[in-house]
């Protein structure tokens, strides 16, 4: 059934070459879970420039991309190293224009979630009761106000965000691109539907019958997906629920690395430019990753019933 359709399975290098261009608006989403480090590294390796990077929480991966000079602008709502302090490359860019100035378009989480939701629905805006009394309104003209056509109440409004390409990570997908996620889903569905192209990066490729055995679990069906990349451990040092846990030591250690521009560059040289891709990255980490692997803990079964 899928035989005649164009093959979507490609390497990360192919996916980035094809779907990420200088100047593009790029979202690598996954809120604190399933963060696409492998995708970000490949974008650094391919030296993409002038990107508008969108993400609720820029996290360590965007800190690396900013340091590597990929970003012209950041659309975000919380830029820190979760549970571990600052993103120093981000701070250097904002505080000292190092290595280059970084334009900021800043929202609250709710505001940016609403932008993705509008984008996914191709609605030109979404209303919310938000931002009231915050100085964010003064520094971001894209946060507007409007009146409810029923109550006359003043509400905030944000515009649709529609990235050129969104990368989302998922635990498993079929070759058609239909992907299933469990655990925290963040804004992955909205960010994917909002984008012109979607690249799905998965821990595991499964038979379409696995996906079809549990259709409620599907985050995104294949026909909305442009490319699928099979990249085990593709989220490390972030995590994939049920597959491997978050590498907290890495997150904590990142503060020391990113605080020092030299050390950060050495890190990129060794772990990004110095490897051909995620497979080599994983190979080089070797047994160290085993401490992160989860023991199985299965969900209670459900039956869809047969006639």
């Amino acid at each position: 059934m899928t035989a005649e359709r164009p093959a979507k399975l490609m390497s990360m290098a192919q996916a980035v070459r094809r779907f990420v261009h200088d100047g593009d608006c790029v979202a690598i989403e996954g809120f604190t879970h399933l963060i696409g480090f492998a995708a970000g590294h490949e974008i650094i390796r391919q030296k993409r420039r002038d990107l508008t990077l969108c993400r609720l929480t820029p996290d360590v991966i965007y800190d690396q991309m900013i340091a590597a000079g990929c970003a012209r602008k950041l659309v975000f709502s919380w830029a820190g190293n979760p549970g571990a302090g600052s993103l120093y490359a981000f701070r250097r860019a904002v505080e000292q224009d190092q290595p280059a100035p970084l334009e900021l378009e800043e929202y609250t989480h709710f505001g940016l979630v609403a932008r993705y939701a509008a984008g996914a629905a191709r609605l030109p805006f979404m209303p919310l009761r938000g931002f009231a009394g915050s100085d964010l309104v003064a520094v971001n003209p894209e946060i507007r106000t409007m009146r409810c056509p029923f109550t006359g109440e003043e509400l905030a409004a944000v515009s649709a965000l529609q990235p050129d390409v969104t990368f989302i990570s998922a635990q498993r997908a079929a070759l058609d691109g239909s992907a299933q996620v469990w655990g925290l889903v963040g804004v992955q569905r909205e960010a994917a539907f909002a984008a012109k192209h979607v690249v799905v990066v998965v821990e595991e490729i499964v038979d379409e019958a696995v996906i079809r055995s549990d259709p409620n679990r599907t985050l995104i069906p294949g026909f909305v997906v442009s490319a699928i990349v099979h990249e085990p451990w593709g989220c490390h040092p972030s995590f994939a629920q049920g597959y491997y846990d978050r590498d907290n030591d890495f997150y904590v250690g990142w503060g020391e690395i990113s605080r020092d521009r030299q050390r950060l560059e050495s890190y990129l040289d060794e772990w990004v430019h110095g490897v051909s891709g995620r497979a080599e990255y994983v190979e080089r980490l070797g047994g160290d990753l085993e401490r992160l692997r989860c023991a199985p803990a299965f969900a209670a079964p459900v039956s869809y019933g047969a006639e």
Partner: protein
Amino acid sequence: MNPMAHDQRSPDYTRRELMACQAARQLTDGEVVFVGIGLPNLACNLARRRHAPGLVLIYESGAVGSVPQRPPVSIGDPQLVRGALSVCSMAEVFYSYLHGGRIDVGFLQGAQIDRYGNLNTTVIGDYAQPTVRLPGSGGACEIALHARRVVVIAPQSRRSFPERVDFVTSPGHTPEGGDRSGAGAGPVAVITDLACYGFDRGEMILTSLHPGVTLEEVRDNIGWEVRQAPEVGATEAPAAEELRLLREELDPEGLFL
């Protein structure tokens, strides 16, 4: 991860332990709490173990009804998902739960808090050319707008408690005569490492001093002439069982205490 050493005047507990206990006392059984990482999380789990077994913990990451067995190191900790009642999208977290009026209590932290309870987690200095760029709002601004009660937890200093914050990330109270339609009701309590505060006519007032802390010490560590409640009491010290739970069960590795 353990910036505060044991309090020299009170060898029995640290000020952070006191803060966690005091925050836990803000919670009533059955309430729904929007939780942050660190002290708010410890406070919620302490309350769950002590007097509020039916407390529902919601994290902005989408975990609802989490039962963390150890302190999560991030709001995206996988163990917030394992055993949770529900996991939902962030659109649902913000639209259905927060905007929908389903959150009783929201905990906020901040680099700066001012006389009116405005919180700043965005920049120190000017927005366009900041001295220090902070993470930004995240969920905080709309927690301030929509949670029925907002409780702030923050270590106190003259720098972090200025009369006016450099940037209002999450709005506090509207000063008398001010107009900020749509803004929230403002925090009901501020818990610092020195004292507890409430609000009167939109302005932060001292309500209790922590054991061993003097009024002078409080005044030295706040950026305006702070008013006092009619009766300024002494903050209740942690009970032995609270300390045991915090140290032995809730944060045995001392990540946040």
